[in-house]
């Protein structure tokens, strides 16, 4: 797969040179304020507030992180649990606002995080496709045009009018991937989800991601698997306690990280 990406680099190089970076992080910090004792109720909060006893513990999930990713790059993010990898994807996905710093994302974004999270078990497959496409910001008409290609890719044609609760885990995951990647996005965010369904379907997913990347899609991947990162990415960033420990060529970063 390394060779595949190497050959892609030449074709995407010219696209990349004349455009601005697709992902820009400028001194991005994210602070979580964790109440020292968990205050969950109104009564408890009122008592504590009256006693001036609410104190927060500050926790910086990301601290002064800066980097840029250009069009067509596959960017890997590695680090231990709690290093801030998922927080970084959430900031890219607009789910979290940075506490400080600036984030610029250029282009249409597709999150591939925990596939099938937006599905409803009582609705049939067809309704779920429309619901999930709407969650991703597509209109009903756009979904109608894409519907056949989604069902075909997910290979669930004969079950499309059955309630989702009757689907197997693999079928749900396939439908989730098919929906999230039904249109080639400019930026694809991938969080540990390359283990979709059986091996054959995984190949199919990787093929699709490769072809997106060839056409200029920027991919950001979070993974604990160094094999995935080394295979798939051309650049990587090592996050440690919310800070950039190393960044650069994927092989160098992976070598440093695994040492």
């Amino acid at each position, binding site marked *: 797969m390394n060779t595949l990406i190497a050959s892609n680099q030449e074709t995407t190089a010219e696209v990349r040179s004349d455009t601005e970076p697709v992902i820009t992080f400028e001194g991005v910090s994210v602070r*979580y*304020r964790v109440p020292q004792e968990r205050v*969950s*109720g*109104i*009564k408890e*909060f009122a008592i504590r507030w009256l006693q001036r006893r609410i104190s927060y513990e500050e926790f910086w999930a990301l601290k002064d992180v800066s980097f840029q990713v250009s069009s067509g790059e596959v960017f890997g993010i590695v680090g231990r649990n709690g290093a801030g990898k998922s927080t970084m994807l*959430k900031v890219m*996905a*607009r*789910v*979290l*606002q*940075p506490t400080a*710093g*600036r*984030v*610029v*994302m*250029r*282009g*249409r*974004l597709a*999150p591939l*995080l*925990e596939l099938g*999270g*937006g599905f*409803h078990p*009582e*609705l049939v497959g067809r*309704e779920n496709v*429309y*619901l999930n496409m*709407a*969650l*991703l*910001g*597509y*209109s*009903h008409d*756009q979904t109608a*045009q*894409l519907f056949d*290609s989604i069902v075909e890719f997910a290979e669930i044609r004969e079950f499309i009018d059955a309630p989702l609760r009757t689907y197997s885990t693999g079928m749900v995951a396939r439908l989730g991937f098919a929906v999230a990647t*039904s*249109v*080639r996005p*400019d930026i694809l965010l991938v969080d540990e989800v390359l283990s979709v369904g059986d091996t054959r379907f995984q190949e199919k997913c990787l093929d699709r991601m490769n072809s997106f990347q060839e056409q200029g899609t920027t991919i950001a991947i979070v993974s604990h698997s160094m094999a995935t990162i080394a295979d798939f990415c051309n650049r990587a960033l090592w996050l440690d306690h919310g800070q950039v420990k190393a960044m650069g060529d994927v092989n160098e970063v992976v070598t440093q990280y695994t040492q």
Partner: protein
Amino acid sequence: MLKERIRLAEEIYDSSKRPHPLIEEILALVKYKDLLVQFVSRSIKTRYKRSVLGVFWTMLNPLLTMIVLTLVFSSLFKFEVKNYSVYVLSGLVIWSFFSSTTSAAMGEMIWSGNLLSRIYVPKSVFAVSAIGTGLVNLVLSLIPLFLIALFLGVRLHLAILTMPLAILLLAAFALGIGLLLATAAVFFADMLPVYEVILTIWMYATPIIYPIEVVPEHLVWVLKLNPMYYLLEIFREPLFEGIIPDASMWLISAGAAIIALVLGGLIFTSKSNEYAYRI
């Protein structure tokens, strides 16, 4: 080929160049309008999917309550209200719209926390779709209301043409309250049960099952402070009495609706950035 044609115009998200949160939210809601439609149709479909009576439950539920209340109150307490059934049913229809939409606005938000922490959607979509679902159910329950009113000999006047405006004001008020509740619910886990208690008290402070005349003089101020009293009256009077309520009733209703909506919208959007940290 097809896919390329569907590509949208380039979207740029810059965290340092965001408009006012309320404006950003309204623009995002317009963009995600198909999601609103999806949410409304989803909640209506899933509600009735496994039940035999289907959509008729919406109509039957207040009807059954009406029958029980009519029996209890007109025979036990001897309320001297002509067409008490119509009186109580119109009150119940309005109240169940308000209580179910405000609860759902808060509940949907909490239950969707998992989703909200993974992908971006305008967060008010849950509250707005709760109101939309409530409106569909309200319109459905107007059918039995009018049938019963006609059956019991209530003469319908042209005044009922003001009902859509009354419903609109009520919906705006419910949306504002729903947004305030959703904001509170993210910070306090016990907001749902607390609100249930508030709703019970609030319901008895609103003239739904009792006529206004039975309220003792020294407690009338409770009604006057209760926005739901005005919002209910502007809906019920045209149907029940065949008259258009005073301008003052309309003004107070509209004021309550606008204040709730603006306050709810501002507070909700100013806190909406904190949701992903909390849920």
